[in-house]
């Protein structure tokens, strides 16, 4: 009987090969980031998509707020920041890290707080 159960489990396992499940995590939503403020996602495998949507905001001196993205490994070493034009309000980091966490940061030189609609990461970029 036990042998029969093991065989059945093996057959079922072979019939359904391992599939990497898609996941996504919003790690900031509808909040303000002060200059230099940041947030991390939780630790994840196969991060390959990271995005931030924020409200672009420039003053009369044409200084604009800027958000930037990175991926960090377990040694807390992060890739260089991806940041778009200072007048953009949407940036994606399409790089990959096998295991790590996503980072979403307001530039330290921002003249004002930045309203962030979302910082979101996933493994949907494969």
């Amino acid at each position: 009987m036990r042998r029969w159960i093991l065989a059945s489990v093996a057959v079922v396992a072979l019939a359904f090969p391992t599939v990497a499940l898609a996941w996504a995590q919003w790690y900031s939503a509808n909040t303000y980031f002060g200059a230099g403020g940041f947030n991390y996602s939780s630790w994840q495998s196969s991060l390959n998509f990271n995005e931030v949507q924020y409200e672009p905001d420039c003053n009369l001196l044409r200084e604009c707020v800027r958000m930037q993205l990175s991926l960090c490994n377990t040694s807390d070493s992060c890739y260089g920041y991806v940041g778009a034009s200072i007048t953009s309000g949407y940036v994606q980091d399409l790089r990959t890290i096998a295991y790590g966490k996503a980072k979403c940061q307001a530039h330290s030189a921002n003249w004002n707080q930045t309203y962030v609609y979302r910082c979101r990461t996933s493994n949907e970029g494969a």
Partner: protein
Amino acid sequence: MISLFVAVGGFGTAFAARYLTDPAGFPAGISALRTLPAVPLPESIPPVAVGAAAAYVGVPIENAETRLRRLRSGSQGDLYAFQAEDASVCLFLARRLGTCLRADHFVRLNVPGVFPAISPGYPDEQPVLVAVVADDVRRAWVVTASDQQAASIRNNAIYATLAGSGSDRIDLEVEYESGKRKLVPVQPGGD
């Protein structure tokens, strides 16, 4: 004394005309995005990236995919972009970055017909500056604290390898068909 005022006033007017007056920008057109052949969505641009960008600028993903064009190639891969009906622009650097500029921000933020982004790439790569520019942008220079390099414009795009770390202060100076010039801040220094 009067001649001094006249001289200063004249210089001020010339300076304002050269650097402060705003040219037509993206609503004037990005002709490469109409004239270059359509490309199938490349493997290096994940569908989620185009889908999320399309949602941000408010167009269906199918619309964004059919409007996608390959503008240039460089050390970090190919540069693609699409422009929506309302002139919003999204650009993608293969497996590196994506970003969008929405048309409703053009006026409020005084967008100068130049849409740049810095890609630091992976740690073993040289950072690059990529940009989509409007038809009326004739010449461009990448300006850093220590250097000013001419950047070629092809297919309404700039793709320049940067010498520094990628986190230095970087500006783009552009010259329009009218001869006016503008300094476009790309990124402040530091993180």
